[in-house]
C-alpha cells in the first residue's frame, strides 16, 4: 500500500479524503489493524497547545511623514522593548521581552504580568498598541521621536516567525530540594511535591512522525488559528537521541521553526503567558497534518501515550547545574493518570500543555481538510534526520583574558 500527496490532495478536493485525528486513529488501528487502517485513512491530524518561548513577530509598521529610522534606535510596544537592528521600519517583537520597569525577580517570585507574548496576543486581537520610538536622525530619515497607536490591520506586515516550536518530547520537571522553586516547568513544590510535563503526547506533531518522514521544510500547518509553514528545523533540533523500538525519542529531540502571516491568526490560539518567577512567553497552537503515504507512516501515527516515555529531571540541581542526572523515565499514560512513582514516592502530576486544546486543534485541522479548504504540501527539503550528524552542543566557555 502506498499513496502520494498528490493522490491524497485529489481526494481532499473531491471531499472524499478520510481524515482522523491522532487520537481517533488509535481505535481504528486497534480494531482494523495497521494494514487496513493505512489503506482507509488518508490524513492524520496532530495538535499541540503549549508555552513556546522562541516565538516572535516581525513587524513593518510603515513609514511616517517625515521619515524616522527605527533601525539602530529604541522602540517600545506597550512599554515592551522590541529589536530594532533591522531596516528603517522593521522591528522584531519577541515573546519573552519585558518592560524595562518590570521588577522581574527582584520581588521574588516575579509575576511577569505583561510581556512580548501579551503584546502579540493583543496585536492579533486587533487592539491598538502604543508605539514609542527614539531614533538618532539622518539626512534621509530626519525624525528623532515617534509616539503613535498602531493596529495590526493598518501595518504592512506582521510575520509570526517562531525559531523553535513543537519540541519532539520534553522532560518532566520535579524538585528534590527543600524549598518551592519557580521554573519554566511551573511551580515545583519541595521534596518531590509535584511533577509537571509539557507535550500533548500521542497528539503531538513530531511524536507522530518520529523520523521526520513526512514533516519537512515547506509543510503547511495550522499555526495560531491560521495557516503557517515549517520554515526550517528549529534551533536545538537534535535527532540523535535515545529512541525506543517505535522510534520515539525518550527525551527532547526534533524541533520546528515555523512561519505564518499573523494577520490571519486568532488570539485564542496565541495567548500571552506568565510563568511565575520565570518570565513571559507565548502559548502557541500548532497542528500538523500527516499524510498516510504507507503502512509505516500509519504505524508511527498509531503511537499511544503508553508508548511515549519522558525523562524525569530535578530542576533544583541537575537542570540548573547542567548535570546529566535523570531520575528515570515515565510514560505519558502514567503521567496522565495523575500520579507517578519517583524514588518510591507517589507524586501528583500536572501538564503545562493543554490536551483539550490540542484535541480542538487536531479537529479543526481535520475539519479544514475534510471541507477541501486545506490541501497538503510535500516538503521541499527534509528535516535533518538521525543520519545528519547534528548534535546538541553545550556552550564551550573560553575565558576572555585582558591583553597584556
Amino acid at each position, binding site marked *: 500500500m502506498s499513496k502520494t500527496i498528490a493522490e491524497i490532495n485529489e481526494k481532499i478536493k473531491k471531499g472524499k479524503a478520510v481524515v482522523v485525528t491522532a487520537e481517533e486513529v488509535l481505535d481504528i488501528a486497534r480494531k482494523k489493524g495497521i494494514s487496513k487502517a493505512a489503506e482507509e485513512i488518508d490524513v492524520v491530524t496532530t495538535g499541540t*497547545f*503549549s*508555552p513556546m518561548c522562541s516565538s516572535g513577530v516581525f513587524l513593518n509598521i510603515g513609514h511616517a511623514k517625515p521619515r524616522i529610522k527605527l533601525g539602530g534606535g529604541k522602540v517600545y510596544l506597550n512599554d515592551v522593548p522590541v529589536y530594532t537592528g533591522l531596516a528603517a521600519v522593521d522591528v522584531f517583537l519577541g515573546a519573552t521581552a519585558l518592560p524595562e520597569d518590570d521588577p522581574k525577580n527582584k520581588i521574588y*517570585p516575579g*509575576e511577569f*504580568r505583561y510581556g512580548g507574548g501579551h503584546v502579540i496576543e493583543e496585536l492579533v486581537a486587533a487592539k491598538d498598541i502604543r508605539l514609542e520610538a527614539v531614533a538618532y536622525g539622518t539626512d534621509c530619515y530626519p525624525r528623532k521621536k515617534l509616539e503613535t497607536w498602531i493596529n495590526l490591520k493598518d501595518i504592512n506586515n506582521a510575520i509570526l516567525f517562531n525559531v523553535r516550536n513543537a519540541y519532539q518530547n520534553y522532560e518532566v520537571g520535579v524538585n528534590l530540594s527543600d524549598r518551592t522553586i519557580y521554573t519554566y516547568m*511551573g*511551580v515545583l*513544590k519541595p521534596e518531590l*511535591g*509535584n511533577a*509537571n510535563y509539557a507535550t500533548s503526547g500521542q497528539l503531538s506533531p513530531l511524536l507522530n512522525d518520529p523520523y521526520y518522514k513526512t514533516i519537512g521544510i515547506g509543510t503547511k500547518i495550522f499555526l495560531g488559528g491560521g495557516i503557517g509553514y515549517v520554515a526550517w528545523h528549529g534551533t536545538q533540533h537534535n535527532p540523535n537521541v535515545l529512541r525506543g523500538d517505535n522510534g520515539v525519542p525518550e527525551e527532547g529531540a526534533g524541533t520546528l521553526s515555523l512561519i505564518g502571516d499573523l494577520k490571519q491568526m486568532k488570539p485564542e490560539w496565541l*495567548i*500571552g*503567558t*506568565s*510563568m*511565575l518567577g520565570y518570565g513571559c512567553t507565548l*502559548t502557541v497552537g500548532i497542528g500538523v497534518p500527516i499524510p498516510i503515504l504507507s503502512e509505516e507512516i500509519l504505524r508511527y501515527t498509531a503511537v499511544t501515550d503508553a508508548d511515549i516515555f519522558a525523562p524525569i529531571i530535578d530542576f533544583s540541581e541537575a537542570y540548573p547545574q547542567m548535570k546529566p542526572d535523570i531520575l528515570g523515565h515515565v510514560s505519558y499514560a502514567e503521567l*496522565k493518570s*495523575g500520579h507517578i512513582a519517583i524514588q518510591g514516592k507517589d507524586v*501528583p*502530576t*500536572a*501538564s*503545562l*500543555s*493543554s*490536551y*483539550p*486544546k490540542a*484535541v480542538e486543534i487536531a479537529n479543526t485541522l481535520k475539519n479544514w481538510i475534510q471541507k477541501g479548504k486545506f490541501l497538503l504540501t510535500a516538503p521541499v527539503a527534509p528535516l535533518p534526520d538521525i543520519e545528519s550528524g547534528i548534535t546538541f552542543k553545550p556552550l564551550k566557555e573560553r575565558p576572555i583574558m585582558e591583553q597584556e
Partner: protein
Amino acid sequence: MNISRRIVLHFPPRMTGQPVVYRLTKDFNLSFNILKASISPGEEGLLIMELSGDQRNYDKGIQYLTEVGVKIQSLSQDVVRDEARCTHCGACINLCPTSAFSLEPKTRKVLFDHNKCVVCGLCVKACPPRAMRLYF
C-alpha cells in the same frame, strides 16, 4: 440541623480591636476555622473562615455580625475563573492545597469546584494565562 459555610467578613477600621470571633463561639456555640486573615493600614480588616454549628445558632451569629457592622460575603463569589482565558492546561491542579481543581477524565478539561476553594490565592499567580481572579 448542623450547617457549615465558608464566608468572607469585611471589618470596618473601628472594629478591628473587637473579639468578634470569640463572641461567635462563646455566645452562639459556633465553631470556626480561619482560612485567611489580614488587616492593611487604612483599609478594613478581612477574615475568611468556615463557620459551623446549629442552623438557628448560625443564623443568630450572622445576625450578630451584621448588627455590629461586619459586611458578609459568601466565598463562592470571590474566586472566579475567566472561562475565556482558561486553556485547561492543568498547571493549577496539584498546586491547590484543597484540591479544588480536578480533571474531567474523558475530555481532560480542568474542573473548578468553588465549594472546595479556600481563597489562598496560590492558583492566581501560578496560572500561566492568568485566568483565575480574586475579588473581595
